[in-house]
Each structure stands twice: as structure tokens, then as C-alpha cells.
């Protein structure tokens, strides 16, 4: 019932792109000209025109996506076409260049285009792979739900440790307080845990995955002979464990959502750079050739 953009309408755009590529390769192999293959032949011009129009059209997806009342196909159809026709550019543009590369603006345009395409490949892979992981990780809850659960557990933990003397209370409170989720780009994408805790006698130390504070509570638990205190400590350690697992899930959520988006920060600016280089390339060709 549900179809991804890859299998949209039985992979209609895959077949269209395949025909386009095979056609281009066929004509390239068949045609026999006095001059070496390249942008200057009739085939070169034809393929170049097709490629340039394709690049402009591919860039236009950003506009179509925001044209919410548009009757012109669905965004899913456009995305499907974007992926397959975009991939076919590798063949079209390479044949257009006739395998002539050098240290010039023409090859720059070509390289930028490849970078856009390969960042797009990552995007396709991410879009196919991550949504399910995202949903599995949070079990259908939103990140807000998870944060609310953490806040609830925090309250319960503080109620337990309030009975355990000020040293323990301060340490646990600092651990809750100095819990860090996310941070910079790297921290988000690697799900790094920069949490800290103010340990009695040690000052501020790292509290990765809440382990040091949990160790402290467990340590206390093993030493206490007071029954009531033991029950508070046991409850606190259980809650801290649950809290740690919850935080792991939130970090994972941040990480996957980051991976789902990060490629766009390359794909889109590179696409604009590619269009700019393309304009220079076309201009240069017509003025200086």
C-alpha cells in the first residue's frame, strides 16, 4: 500500500532514466566524427543541453516542494524523478565531456555536479534507512515525550535522594543538572555524551552515560546497613539506570535526525555552486570557443 519514492509507480523514473542513459551511450558509441568526442560536437551540444536543462530542473525541486497548492504531480513523484534523472546526469555529463578533463572551470562544474549527486546518494540511503530506525528507537514517542519522561524521573530521583544526606543529594542533583544532550554538530552526529557530575571530593568529572553517579549510588548501597537508606538507594539506582537508557534513546534520536538532515547542508549549497559553475561554463564556451 505504501510505496517509497524509490519504487514510486513501479520505478517509472528508473526506467525512464535507464532508457535515457542507454540511448546516450548508444548514440555516443555509434556516432563517428572527424573530431575527437567532446562538448563541441553536435552530440556534445545535444547532451550538454539536456544536462544543463536537467540541472536547472533538478534545482527547481526546491521550489516545487514549496508550491503547496500545485497540481503538477505529487512531491513524491518529483522526488522519485529527481533521484533517477539526477543519477543519469553522471552518464549524460561524462559523455557530454567526452572524457576530457582538466584543471579548468568546465571540469570544476563537472566535479561540483558529481559532489551534488553523491551527497544526494547519501541522502537517498539515509531516507531509506533511517526513518525506520528513528521510529524503532523512540517507539512512536516524540522527543518531547521522552524529555517529559526524563523530567518525571528526575523528580522521582530527587525525592529519593532527599532522604540520603546533603552530600549525596548535591552529587545527584549536579548529575541531573549537568546532563547534556546534543551540543555541536559532531556531538550530535556521534551521540557524544558531554554530561558531567560534581563528585564529592573530586570536583567536576565527566559523567558519561550516567555511569559515575550510578557507581557512586551503588557503592553507597553496598556500604549501608541502614534498611531504609538501602531502599532509597536501590530505588535511586534503578531510576538512574532508567534515566540513562532514556537519555541514550534521546541522543540516538538526535543523532539519526541529524544524519537525516546533515547531507542537505552539503547537497543544496553545492547544487547552487554547481549551477553557478555551469553558468560560467556555458558563458565561457560561447564567448571563448
Amino acid at each position, binding site marked *: 500500500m505504501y510505496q517509497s519514492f524509490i519504487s514510486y509507480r513501479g520505478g517509472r523514473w528508473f526506467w525512464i532514466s535507464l532508457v535515457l542513459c542507454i540511448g546516450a551511450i548508444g548514440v555516443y558509441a555509434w556516432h563517428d566524427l572527424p573530431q575527437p568526442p567532446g562538448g563541441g560536437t553536435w552530440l556534445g551540444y545535444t547532451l550538454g543541453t539536456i544536462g544543463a536543462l536537467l540541472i536547472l530542473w533538478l534545482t527547481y525541486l526546491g521550489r516545487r*516542494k*514549496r508550491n503547496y497548492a500545485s497540481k503538477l504531480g*505529487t*512531491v513524491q513523484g518529483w*522526488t522519485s524523478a529527481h533521484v533517477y534523472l539526477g543519477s543519469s546526469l553522471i552518464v549524460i555529463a561524462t559523455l557530454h565531456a567526452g572524457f576530457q578533463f582538466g584543471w579548468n572551470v568546465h571540469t570544476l562544474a563537472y566535479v561540483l555536479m558529481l559532489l551534488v549527486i553523491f551527497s544526494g546518494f547519501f541522502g537517498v540511503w539515509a*531516507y531509506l534507512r533511517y526513518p525506520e530506525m528513528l521510529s524503532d528507537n523512540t517507539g*512512536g514517542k516524540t522527543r518531547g515525550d521522552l524529555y517529559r519522561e526524563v523530567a518525571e524521573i528526575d523528580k522521582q530521583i530527587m525525592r529519593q535522594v532527599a532522604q540520603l544526606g546533603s552530600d549525596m543529594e548535591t552529587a545527584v542533583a549536579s548529575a541531573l543538572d549537568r546532563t547534556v544532550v546534543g551540543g555541536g554538530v559532531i556531538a550530535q552526529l556521534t551521540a557524544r555524551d558531554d554530561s558531567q557530575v560534581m563528585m564529592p571530593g573530586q570536583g567536576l568529572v565527566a559523567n558519561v552515560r550516567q555511569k559515575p553517579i550510578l557507581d557512586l549510588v551503588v557503592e553507597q548501597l553496598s556500604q549501608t546497613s541502614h534498611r531504609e537508606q538501602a531502599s532509597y538507594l536501590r530505588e535511586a539506582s534503578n531510576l538512574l539506570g532508567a534515566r540513562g537508557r532514556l537519555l541514550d534513546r534521546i541522543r540516538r534520536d538526535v543523532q539519526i535526525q541529524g544524519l*537525516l538532515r546533515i547531507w542537505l547542508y552539503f547537497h543544496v549549497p553545492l547544487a547552487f555552486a554547481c549551477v553557478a559553475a555551469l553558468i560560467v561554463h556555458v558563458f565561457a564556451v560561447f564567448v571563448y570557443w
Partner: protein
Amino acid sequence: MSGKIKIAVVGSGPGGISAAAHAAELGVPHVLLEATAKHSDTIQKYQKGKHVMAEPNVLPLRSPVPFEQGSREAVLDAWEHSLGQHSVNVRYQARVTAIEGSKGNFTLTINDGEKLEAEHVILGIGVQGNPRKLGVDGDDATFIQYQLDDPDEFRNETIVVVGAGDAAIENALALARHNRVYIVNRRDEFARAKEGNLGAITAAIAGGDLQCFYSTNVVRVDTGDFDDKPGQIVLGTPSGEVQLAVDRVIARLGAVPQRKLVESFGVEFPNEDPSALPVLTTKYESNVAGMYIIGALGGYPLIKQAMNQGYEVVEYILGNSIKPADHPLLEQKFAVMPYALEVDEVLELMQERVPIFSRVNPLVFRELMLDSNILMPEPGEVVFAKNDYTNTFFTILDGSVEIEAGPDLTIKSGQGNFFGEMSLLSGRRRSATVRAGTFCVLIETPRRTMNKLVNSVDAVKRVLDETFILRTIQQRFAPSVPLEDLRPIAKAAKINHYKPGEVVFQEGDRADSLHLIRSGSVTVAKSFDSREIPMAYVAAGNYVGEMGLLGNSDRSATVRATVKTETISLDSGTFLDLLQKSPELLESMRDEVKQRTQQNVRLQADAASGDMLSFLMQQGLGEATDVLLIDKALCVGCDNCEVACAETHGGTSRLNRKAGAVFAHIHVPTSCRHCEDPHCMKDCPPDAIKRSPGGEVFIQDNCIGCGNCEENCPYGVIHMAYKPPKKPGIWSWLLFGAGPGPGQAYGKEEVPQGPDEQKMAVKCDMCLDLAGGPACVRACPTGAALRLSPEDFVDLVSTR
């Protein structure tokens, strides 16, 4: 006050004020009695600054008291001013607790003590009801209140909240932020509360934010100095009496329904239905001569109607027979008809010609006609087509229509008959196409108006139900048998009502009847390893239980209502009669059985798909006609669906992608599912919520922003929103930075919220105006968003 008054007006709402002011300007001895300290209690309780609308716009105002749309404050001020200007004799804090006597000689008891004599009584007390009191000694103490306007008004006080409903919980939670709060619950749990409130109060009690006394009642309230507090409350807890010194007691014990009070005055209601209206004459007089009923209590919820009635009633009491304010409206409505008759004559003719309306009281009928339309379709013109989602009710005043009920069944129906009752009663699509005959004059009555009539007039309900059963049996089982022959079978059929989750029949039971689902829907489940696994979903209009009946055996599955459901059941004897009358029925039923069996095989023994179907039903999709489902395995969370919704609907999204439950990657976001029998349409004062022939439930511009639909929707898909200003075009945004860009919203401070701005209800209209269809689905880049109808559920479930 001493001496006899000509007119006593009870209740100072818009109707009461208008009546009293008119009596005052005519110099008639009168009194306006108000239970609370201020007039118009219901409107006083509107939120601050709420915009009050003056629907229906076409109806002229006839009252010495001004009324035009504006803020609640402006409206109330104008009335306040008018009360003074006309020197209305108004008495506040005068709750009428009893009325005895008869016309010319009524005795009104005020606050259980003082007596007042009046010749006529006008009741304009609305339907809100009076808050239920504590009912213990000292419950009139000044520190007890029955309402809480602004919880932030109180700080550092000790407050006891009495009650276990949503109002009590919400008040207690809000007060607990800055006060020491106790909540008193008569029972040992909060059984009546909404789920969200239940969770919140339980957590708050566990967290020590407030303290709860369970299984506790209030013994008495003492006034005096208790630890520097104005009083104390004495509670009877399971472990003995507890005395608490308090600053404030807030009792939220619900309201005493007005009906009981009104009945104690001698006014009769036609039946037990809570929505039934008292029977009134064309002059708004009740069965108690000299006692008149106006406004919401009489079934007229709009302010302007009530005010006009107040004016008219005073005229009637004085013996003047003026034409009602709506007279010109009816005149205009009837002008299209080929009769040279006066309005009243046309109304009489209609009641004479149409038997179903003949026993309706003329006032109710007049109101019905105000809401109805007169149609004069050309011969052959389609009145409605099969599978349309419209649900109005038609009566034939003149000429005839042809009902194409089946491929070989065309029924001609003539003057005085009605049609369209199937969709009216079931909320389902039209089951037949109806074409106009020659010289056809039809009365088209909206569903809401008709339902009001059905609930108030038993005779109408009975006729409609009987006809519904008869026509359904003919259409579904015996198209070739004339209606007359089916009458005994229809008589033997029963209408059954089921609550959500209730069992229609159980696996293993003796199969003794067949159920035709009239409204709602059911799941068919089989048990495997002592677990009930749903295997099929059956929507209204279809039947269940035929398998056992044909084989005359035991039930092979359990059938359960998914939502509030009504079925028509035929027992096996009756059904065999039917089979004899209509031999071809056996064939068609066998086909149906075959299909059902195939469907069962597809889902058989697959617990996962059964769980999925259960999940969908738990989300209330059993009553959906079209629902947005998101496949989480494809959704990248780009929010383009939500943005597309906002962008195509004046800047406010009607869809909340993040909210809603998920099961096996299928996510039911908070978005309208266009219910078969929409809850939102039930209580819309201006009747602004409509269903298009395609099934889309949408809100028209005459919404008055009352919020009833928001409250009535069990799925939380309607909300109230200000209309943001129009966005600039994409190029002016791109080049000149004008306004928010595509997909961006206006900031809160940029949306006008002045006194002239009104929050309106907004909901999904399935992009009725967009040629391409729902924008949410079309904007999804990955194909994660789909709109499905329940018929697709089996496919969805079996492909996952």
C-alpha cells in the same frame, strides 16, 4: 415587593432582558429575576474579550435592547446600559426555586422563601443549569465558590477543591502551583476524568504537589476564625473526621440540569431524551397556560432569536398578534413556489400535505421551515446521487420523484412522501439516486434540524425508523418484493444499540439472527489461544451474522461494535420468510459469504495483522471515512505535510504530525478522519459545519467561534485559531524579505488579536478547494503520508 405583577421574567439572559425591557418601555408591571449577581450569566462566563457573533445575519433584530456583534464586554455593557435606560425592574440574587398556580395567578418562590405573585411567567433560563451545592450545613459561606475564573488570582492560600470531575481536577492542578491544595473525592479513584487529567492528577498526588482525600465526603463548613483563616471544612474520611482551616473552598460538583427544575414548574417534555425540547405553541406558550419559554431552553440557542422571542412574547401576552420577526424570511423562501398563498397558509398546506409533519407542533414546524429550503428541480434533474455524502432530508410537497434504489428497482414516490431518511439516520452515503419528476416541489431539511425534530417528536422518530427498516430490507435483501409485502417482516425487525466495544454476538453462540449495521461499524474477531484476534472490519450498510444463519449453526466469530453502533436485526424465522419471498436473495447472500470467507482466509491466524486492526479501531477509526495515516518507516520528519496544510489554509495547520499513536510503524497523526456521523456537527449553533457530497466535513465562514465542535470532537482535531494576515508572494519574500517565506508561519505577535478579531474553529477540509486533492499527501516527498478509507484497512493490515 408586594402586589401582583403582570409579567415575571425568569432569567436575565438576552431573551429575558429583551422581554423585560420591552415590558418596561410599554409601562407593563414586570420584574426580571436573576439568580446570580449579574445579568446574562452564560455570556458573563465567556472568556475575557471573546467575540460574540450576531448570527443569523439575515434575521432582523426586534428588541428595544441593542445587539450587534462585538466583544463580550461591549455586548454586556450595551445590555447593562439598556437595563438602566428602560428602568427595568431587575432583581439580582433572586433564584426562582418553585412556580405554582396558573395563568393570571402564578406564585413564584424566590430563594426558597419569599413569594411573588405574577399573572404571566416568561422562562428564559437557558440550558446551562445551576451549579450543584455542597448540600451540607454552612454551604452558603462566603469563602465557598462554585466557579474559578482565574486560578492565578490566589496565592499562598489553603484551598480545598471538592469534586472528582475534569473541572475539579483542572482547578486543583492550576491552584496547586501557588497554593496549598487539597482535593476531596467521594470515591476511591478519579473514574469520571479525561485520560490526560487522570494522569496529571495521579502524578500530582504521587508527587506531593497536592493532597487527596479519597472516599471522603464533606460533613459541614464552619465560618469563623480558624488559625487566622475565615473558616474550616470538616471532612468525613475513612479514618475519621478531619478538620481543615481553609481560605477557600471550591466546589465543582457539576450542574443541576434545567429540565428537572422546569418540569417541577409543570412544563412537560415529550420524552426522556436529554435533548428533547418542551412543547410550545406558535406563541411560545408551554403546556402550562400563561407560562412562556424562550431562548435556548425552548431550542433556540442563538442570541438574536432569543431577543426577538422576548419581544414577541410580551406582545402576545398583551394580546397583540404580531407577525414573528422571521416572517419576511419565510415570505422570501416561499416566493419561489407556484402558490398564491400567505406564509401561514403555506405552512398549513405543508403540514396538511406531508403526513410526517402533520403532527408536529406549528412553532416547531415554522422553525424547521426557516432552516429548510424549497427546491423546484426540473423533470429528470438529479436531486442527489448514489454514494453522495449529503444527509439532508426531503419531503415531497407536490409532484413526484423517482428513486433508483437498485439496478432493477426504481420506485416512484409522490406527494406527501419523504426520502433521504437513510443517510439522515445512518450518516452514511446516499444509497440511491433520486431524480425529480414533473412539477416537483421539494422541501429540503438539514440533518441537524431534522434530528432536533426526531428527538422531540416521538411520532416522527417512529415513522422514520419504520420506513428506514422497510426500505433497507427491500434494498438489501428483496428488491423485487413490493414494500407492502415486506411490512410484516419489517415489523419483526429490531433496532439494537451498542456502546463502543460491546459484543453484538459471541463466537460459539447459537446463530439466531442477522445484523444489518445501520450506523457505526464492527470488527469480526476469532479467538486463537484464548486471545481474540480481529479479522475483519465491517462498516455501516453491510450485514454480519449471515454465515451462521444460512448454515443454521453456531456463531463462528465474535462481532463487536468499534464505536457507538446501531444494527437492525432479523431473527432466523423472519429471515426464512424473506428467503421465500425473494429466492434470488439466497444466491446473492452466498456470494457475500464467499467474499467474507476469502477475506478471512487472507487474515487468518495472523495475530500481527489482528493487532494492527485492533490498534486502528482503538484510534477510533471505526467511524472514520477518510483518515491520514503515516508510515513511520518512510517518514523523514520534514513536516512538509503540516506546512502544506498551513500554506493552503490561510496559515493555520489542521494537522499535527508529531502527535498521535503509533503501532508497527503506522502512525495516526492528529488530523480529521471525517467521521461517518461527525461528533463536531452535533451542536453547532449557526449550523456552520457541513458535509460535502464527497464526504468532506468542513466549517463554513458563518462559524461564531463558540468552540462547541472543538469540545465535542473526541479526536482533538479541531482547534480555535485567529486568522493570520495574507502572506506576500514568494518573489517579494525572496528578493525583498517581505513577510514570512513559504512554509514559515507568522509570529504570534504578527497575528492580529484585537477586539474585532475572532478565533474561529479550524479543521481539515480534505482540501476541498484544491483540484489536486489533499495537500498533505501531495506534499510528502517520500510517500509516507496516505489518506485511506476504512475499506482500505484490510489491505493495509494484510500487506504489513
